[in-house]
């Protein structure tokens, strides 16, 4: 079965050890995390975790259910099929001499990236966007020599006025056993 990237959003209790429980569940069940981003949510004492996981629909469904079983996970959604706003932030330190600096600034400008630090032999660029945008800029910058990259992993939100949809039981899957 084809694997695709899924975006899971978990609202978890902001308590010591909770992230450990979430991550440990992935290890224990043999699932792989592509990226994970954690921060405060709109509710005090609740954190929002965005997890990108690569897998078949069935695998990711199992991931979602196992995460939902954790007592400290208050809500969890698989928002993959929804209209999303997904963003990642990256800091890129790139080699820059007086000869190349203006060219790099031009690239940053095209990607609406910000220069956050300037040194005699380097520039640090802050870029926000989806993974494709960041990858595209990195591709252009690699020619100058990238010294360091720090990326946050994706955070995501469903578009529109409504909050995340309530978790519900998925309808029965087709009887795939016969083909097995």
């Amino acid at each position, binding site marked *: 079965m084809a694997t695709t990237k899924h975006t899971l959003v978990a609202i*978890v*209790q902001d308590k010591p*050890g909770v992230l*450990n*429980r979430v991550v*440990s*569940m992935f290890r*224990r069940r043999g699932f792989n995390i592509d990226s994970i981003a954690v921060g405060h949510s709109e509710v005090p004492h609740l954190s929002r975790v965005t997890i990108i996981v690569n897998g078949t629909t*069935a695998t990711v*469904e*199992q991931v979602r*259910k*196992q995460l*939902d*079983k*954790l*007592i*400290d*996970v*208050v*809500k969890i959604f698989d928002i993959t099929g929804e209209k999303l706003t997904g963003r990642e932030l990256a800091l890129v330190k790139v080699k820059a001499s007086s000869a190349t600096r203006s060219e790099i600034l031009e690239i940053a400008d095209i990607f609406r990236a910000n220069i956050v630090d300037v040194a005699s032999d380097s520039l640090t660029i802050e870029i926000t966007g989806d993974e494709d945008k960041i990858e595209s800029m990195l591709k252009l910058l690699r020619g100058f020599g990238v010294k360091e990259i720090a990326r946050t992993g994706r955070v995501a939100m469903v578009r529109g006025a409504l909050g995340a949809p309530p978790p519900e*039981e998925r309808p*029965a*899957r087709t*009887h*795939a*056993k016969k083909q*097995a």
Partner: protein
Amino acid sequence: MKKTGAQILCESLIAEGVDVMFGFPGGVLLPFYDTLPQYPQIRHILVRHEQGAAHAADGYARATGKVGVCMATSGPGATNLVTGIANAYLDSVPMVALTGQVVRAQIGKDAFQEIDITGITLPITKHSYVAMDTAALAKIVKEAFYIARTGRPGPVLIDIPKDVFTDQAEFVYPDKVDLPGYKVPTYGHPTQLKNAAKLINEAKQPLIIAGRGVIISGASAELKELAERAQIPVITTLLGIGCFPESHVLSYGMAGMHGTGYANKALENCDLLIAIGMRFDDRVTGKVSAFAPNAKIIHIDLDPAEIGKNVNVDIPIVGDVGVVLHAMHKMIENNSHIEWIGQLDEWRKQHPMLDIQDGDKLLPQRIVRELYEATKGDAIVVTGVGQHQMWAAQHYFFNNPDSFISSGGLGAMGFGLPAAMGAKVGRPEKMVWLIDGDGSFQMTIQELATLVQDDIDVKIAIINNGYLGMVRQWQDLFYQKNYVATPLSCPDFVKIAEAYCIPGLQVTKREEIKPAIEKAMKHKGPFLLNFMVEPEENVYPMVPPGASNIEFIEQPKKEVSTWPRRSIR
């Protein structure tokens, strides 16, 4: 009025209805044990090894349906609980495990007997707590018991630093829990119920496979009503044994690796499988791709994560088994399925389980059968893990839920004796028989002392074949009889028992079985029977590992075997 953490813990346990706990003291638990005598309502049973405490709490919980409580000190005490906690986790047993921890200031400093027990037990607990504040202790205990016993039950661990026991706080026991992330599904989805009822009403060859979920939910009556109304044959998993009376005309025994031939044939041929409170363990499914190949599957379970985990199902119903079955009853039509049941009865004749070819040999199957006769099927039977466990499951007929207590998911040897102890403590009015193997028994044999000290009347039947029998059986069948590390030197168990002041008898002949069992039953207090059985008897039928259930191997015709005893005499 302010109370110490130790007092708060005791009061909280009492508020949860705890009247017995199994434990073992240690340095950081001293403040707790110092306080315990103030609360004579709590009976503390001192085990000989913390693994015994966890298994005893497990046996107690399975026999009573209440939450079992065990306690161990920090470090090695806590790590010794691990096997028992894992066992409770895999078999969905409600348990609260209390561990002592070093004082708060020393946490993370590798202090003496400090271990990160919440970290170690993270994947084998339903939830866990480190109680870092005496004022929060009551709330934590309340939540722990609530989580352990509701929904799909499981073990919850509370790690308590020594100075949390000695600190003081106001004690108010909360009357409610606030757990926004904890959901317990109850009712099945109405549309799915309708769809399921439609499939059941239309099926020509329906089959029910029932698991421990039925026992946990207390849904035996609902299961019986469904089976009888629609005339659906019932098979069970190992841990489902007893949820449907095995004397019932619709009962076709256990399915899976050592299940009956007719149960496995029924699985192969059914056109609808109604899986109730079970999780498609590989010991039940055999080769998954060949499992119930002709059937649509309805899966009723409380845990949504079990749906579609191992086997794809057509109609998932997430809810409490009893509630779901009750809601479905009025949608189920009366039915007969005469041909299908006739077919199963025909298979039962072709693959009889009752046929024991003993000749002049002392066979384990006969012993279990005699135990059944002598106890009139009314005992609680607890087992270790191995061949004896399967013989107990196959040859004792269980008609009551909670009457067969065994380590299923984890398959933990050594479970038997402490679990039997816990079961007897929880159900003193019942006769409790431990059927154990010579290998399993030696893993937790030290709990014999606990039986004596706390006057716990467990009857012990050791199926002694001088081997780690189940492993030897696999070596026999799949490793060209290369018996490596399975011949087992055993002490004289009767003498061992005697040393613990427990009377015992050695049994070597078939005709001695009955009088020996009667003697044990007449004796007030624990009694040990050491059955020196045929050493190379195998458990049949057997589905080879990785094979499909229909490929079960049956008992071959008997050869004459010798008697190479390996016991120390």
